[in-house]
């Protein structure tokens, strides 16, 4: 196994006095897709948001333990959260394109981070990102249309294009298909397959089939605990923990 890209050690997250995540340790390598599964409220999304410090936006949230990106503690005072988020991109549950043109949505990241110096360069990034997100052919003639005018599935792919435009190292996906229809979902899953290898991908999903289809390793969360973490094939065919078995066989969830 290669060096882990992300390493989380004994991470606990509190919202005020409530503990939402209890002592979770996990690592994610560069060329794999890791899925987080578990019933609603099990803390999988909360944990995902600690990986690029989006929990900072919740005033009452507090994180304990260590999380390393390439061996660097992302909660260290010296860590620049702005650069961290450029390196660890995120795609949200509900597509959230900015109310700007398609082009501007994708160009937003490179612009704020100053990644380009010429208009042509930016055009290339926009095109490349849209191509990689599998959206180019659908929108190339209407790049100036508003991003919010696209269909739900297209919006979500636009959000993925937006995330990869800054060329992150990791992409976090928080139930990216839960608001989409099956056809759009299939397209996103296909896209995840293609992105795999270039970006480390962590995906939170409600849908166990989806986890089985897209991921190499799966983590099962329950009530804030990491119950089981292992190869996806093992989790689904031969779970070690009783709770995991109950969940994947549909006893609860």
């Amino acid at each position, binding site marked *: 196994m290669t060096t882990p890209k992300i390493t989380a050690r004994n991470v606990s997250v509190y919202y005020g006095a409530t503990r939402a995540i209890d002592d979770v340790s996990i690592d994610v390598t560069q060329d794999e897709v890791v899925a987080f599964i578990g019933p609603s409220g099990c803390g999988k999304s909360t944990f995902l948001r600690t990986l*690029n410090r*989006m929990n900072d*936006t919740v*005033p009452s949230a507090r994180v304990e333990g260590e999380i390393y990106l390439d061996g660097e503690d992302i909660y260290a005072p010296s860590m620049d*959260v*702005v*650069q*961290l*988020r*450029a*390196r660890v*991109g*995120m795609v*949200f549950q*509900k597509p*959230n*394109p*900015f*109310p*700007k043109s398609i082009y501007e949505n994708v160009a*937003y*990241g490179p612009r*704020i*981070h100053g990644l380009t110096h010429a208009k042509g360069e930016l055009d290339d990034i926009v095109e490349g990102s849209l191509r990689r997100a599998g959206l180019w052919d659908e929108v190339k003639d209407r790049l100036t249309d508003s991003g919010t005018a696209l269909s739900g599935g297209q919006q979500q792919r636009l*959000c993925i294009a*937006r*995330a990869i435009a*800054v060329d992150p190292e990791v992409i976090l996906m928080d139930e990216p298909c839960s608001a989409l229809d099956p056809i759009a979902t299939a397209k996103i899953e296909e896209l995840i397959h293609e992105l795999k290898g270039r970006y480390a991908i962590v995906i939170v999903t409600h849908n166990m089939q989806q986890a089985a289809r897209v991921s190499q390793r799966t983590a099962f969360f329950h009530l804030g605990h990491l119950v089981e973490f292992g190869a996806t094939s093992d989790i689904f065919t031969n779970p070690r923990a009783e709770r995991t078995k109950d969940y994947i066989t549909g006893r609860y969830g």
Partner: protein
Amino acid sequence: MSGLSLVILVIGLALIGWLAGRMRAAAFRRGSTRRFSSQPVHHGWFVALWTVGPPLVFLAIWALTSPALVTDAVLANPAASQLPPPGFDRASILSEARSLAQGRSYGAFHELARTLAPVYAAAQSRFDWIASGIALLLAFAGGAFTFTRVGPGFAARTQVERVVMILLLTASLIAILTTMGIVASLLWEAGRFFRIVPAWEFLFGTHWSPQVISARDPGASLGAVPLFWGTFFIGAVIAMVVAIPFGLMSAIYLTQYARASTRRWIKPTLEMLAGVPTVVYGYFAALTVAPAVRQLGVSIGIADASSESALAAGLVMGIMIIPFVSSMADDSLSAVPAAMRDGSLAMGATSSETIRKVLVPAALPGVVGGVLLAVSRAIGETMIVVMAASGVATLTANPFASTTTVTKQIVDLLTGEAEFDSAKTLAAFALGLTLFVITLLLNIVALTVVKRYREAYE
């Protein structure tokens, strides 16, 4: 009989009706085991409402129509034949006679008014007696008729509730009546003005000096363009230059940066700025700000800096508008979904980049709507400009020069000693009409923009 005692008498009758109806209903219920649709109190209300309602409606209509009837009666009197033909003189003699007859004044300018006063008084008292008689008759008739209806099978509650519904409906119709009253009175008086001064001369003329109105060509000194410009300059330019940056930045700070505890006490404090009466702002502008602005103007080499400058009035108006802009911007920013902010932050944008490039553009329609409402409020604001702006209409873009506004001129025109029918006083209504139309349009546009914006995020 005076109006007030008559009303009290009618209400007294209604009270008797209420008690009587209640007692009668209670009587037939006693000893009965069946269930009634109405309680005694409903029967009481039923009788009372029919006692008090018709006479009051009659009196209200009477109050509107009787002055005309009284005047007709006076005009039919032989003494009235000496009256001049319809016009200003005739109206003022009649009005003097009226105040003499009602004891509101003791001397008259016109001799004829003194002769007509007793005629007036006689006609007035005759009509008053007629009105009292009819009102009391209606009260008795209504009360007696409904009293006989009180019985076990009578659904008094349904009847009472119907009256309540009519009352509620009437109350809401008053809003329409008020709007219609505003539109009608402004149109009527402005219409009279436009018969003296052509509308285009008023709307496009660039010379305004109502102190000297030539009788042959009143329109020549009643061109309102300088007023429109002054209003726009003070209310929509100077005030907004102050209010927009302060209001918007305050809203941004309070919604995006401030801790909840800070926000909890800063927000009401800012809103206090909006609660200060405008006359206080006006006094502040005239006493403190205007001299300071003049000093500033002189010190930067503008020798003719006025102590009634547009800048002083506009600055203070801007301060007054800050909380207004701030609370509209606050609402708009809060309406932007959190996902939008998260999306930008997750890209590695800083807070200020997120605010400037995502939140403010997303909230822009709401903010623009709020600014339009603020402009509408600023140009309709009166006391600050009455106290701090000048009465001299000049077409200038120099903020240190004196400028006047529509509202200031309305006040000036109507508080002189001029007679009510002159071009000067009527011009105030034409200005009022213009102001009303412009603020109405601004409000409609602003509310539509804001509404569409809210729907976009729902």
